[in-house]
């Protein structure tokens, strides 16, 4: 188990592993999402209180769950990156941040859409909403910090520090907002638990479980792909990238584009496979 883990951490073997796994995960995720959405939107009965508005939970709950899960994942990867100086973990931090931010934004938007018919307002300073908003800022901080450095490695390690401090901060924020909220006596805020907990009927539950697991599979598929890009961009000077990543698509494309000849890579070609950070040609290394 451990040696397998160790081998996986080397960029080339990870790349091949991700290449095999990602399509399956993506297919599985989309299938689960499709079935779950169909079940949620057409099969599950309308809520007797909220009517059809409750159906937003089939998007909202998975997005909210993932927004927290991805952050914890990022912090764990950050800790690994800082303690063992593992390149793959550094890539994992910066690859996860934009996906997590998207899920957080999705959770916020769907929450607001649900809030309008239910609470009568798009935004309420509810504890969950507020801490989700702060979480979005944490993600934006990581993304911004990653962009601010010209050197990918320094950027990723700075992001890892931020993710670590942030993960300590998330519960503090959550409790502080909860406490702050309870100070307003008598405000009529419906908590989300009230919707989720009470005797949710199985016809409503199974689509939710499907979209939830589908979202996780979808996240891992996207994350693996982003990780692959990140790894290739970092290792663009290495031999294995030349051999196993760039050769195949290069050959395919150079057949189509008659203008591109010779062994030297065009930078725009490279960014097809890996996001280019410095815009410098690979030969500079």
């Amino acid at each position: 188990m451990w040696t397998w883990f160790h081998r996986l951490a080397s960029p080339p073997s990870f790349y091949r592993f991700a290449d095999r796994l990602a399509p399956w995960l993506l297919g599985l995720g989309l299938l689960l999402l499709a079935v779950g959405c169909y079940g949620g939107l057409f099969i599950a009965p309308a809520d007797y209180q909220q009517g059809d508005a409750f159906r937003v939970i089939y998007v909202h709950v998975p997005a909210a769950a993932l927004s927290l899960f991805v952050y914890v994942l990022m912090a764990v990867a950050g800790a690994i990156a800082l303690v063992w100086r593992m390149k793959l973990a550094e890539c994992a931090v910066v690859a996860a941040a934009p996906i997590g931010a998207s899920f957080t934004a999705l959770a916020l938007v769907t929450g607001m859409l649900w809030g309008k018919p239910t609470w009568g307002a798009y935004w309420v300073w509810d504890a969950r909403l507020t801490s989700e908003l702060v979480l979005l800022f944490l993600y934006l901080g990581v993304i911004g910090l990653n962009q601010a450095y010209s050197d990918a490695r320094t950027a990723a390690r700075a992001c890892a520090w931020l993710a670590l401090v942030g993960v300590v901060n998330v519960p503090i924020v959550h409790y502080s907002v909860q406490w702050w909220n309870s100070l307003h006596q008598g405000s009529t805020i419906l908590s989300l638990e009230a919707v989720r907990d009470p005797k949710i009927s199985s016809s409503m539950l199974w689509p939710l479980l499907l979209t939830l697991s589908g979202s996780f599979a979808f996240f891992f598929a996207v994350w693996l792909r982003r990780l692959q890009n990140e790894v290739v961009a970092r290792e663009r000077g290495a031999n294995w990238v030349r051999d196993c990543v760039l050769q195949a698509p290069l050959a395919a494309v150079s057949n189509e584009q008659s203008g591109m000849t010779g062994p030297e890579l065009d930078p725009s070609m490279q960014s097809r496979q890996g996001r280019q950070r410095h815009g410098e040609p690979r030969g500079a290394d």
Partner: protein
Amino acid sequence: MNAMLDAAWAVFVRELRLALRRPAEATQPLVFYCVLALLFPLGLAAQDVGLRAFAPAIVWVSALLAALLGIERLFRADVDDGTLEQWLLADVPFPMLVGAKLAAQWLLIAAPLIVAAPLIALALNLQPQAIGVLLLGLLFGTPVLVFSGGFAAALTVGAPRAGLLIPILVLPMMCPALIFGAGAVRAAQVGLSVEGPLYFLAAMMVLSLTLLPWAAAGALRNALE
């Protein structure tokens, strides 16, 4: 152990000496804080009764912004002239030196804010019984503001264009302090118990004082590499 404390003390004294050399720069946060807090009433109607209700938030947000003023330059001079290299190489734990620097910054930035707070509170019509709670809250809360600002400055020290990023980085760390700090004052205003939020603030202060110097030191080491 003694050598460690001596080194930390040397860092502390050096910060104060540098501030004395540039008094205009050192008083900037205080001036900014007073101006900001005293501009708020001008935005309301004269004799507005709502001012009292907003007073805790005004004092705290002003303190927060004043603590952020110029924080991005905190480590830049020391990185640029090579001083931080010497800190890293000294036979003293680096986080301790960073902590000493941040503690000195607290004394320079935040202590004047606390001293000026009663006057501002009076100007904002805050009830006298709430002023003590305000000061206690600021005493516990401002270390959180300064230390998290220092952490953000350490994170961005290697990225010259990151000045705009600092508000985003510190917002999540500062909002609990703001909530409890202003919350304690509001509780005092209506005669509720203030112990809960103050304990929470004190716990956050301890957490920041112990953890953030390590995180800031790690970020600085990373930026220097």
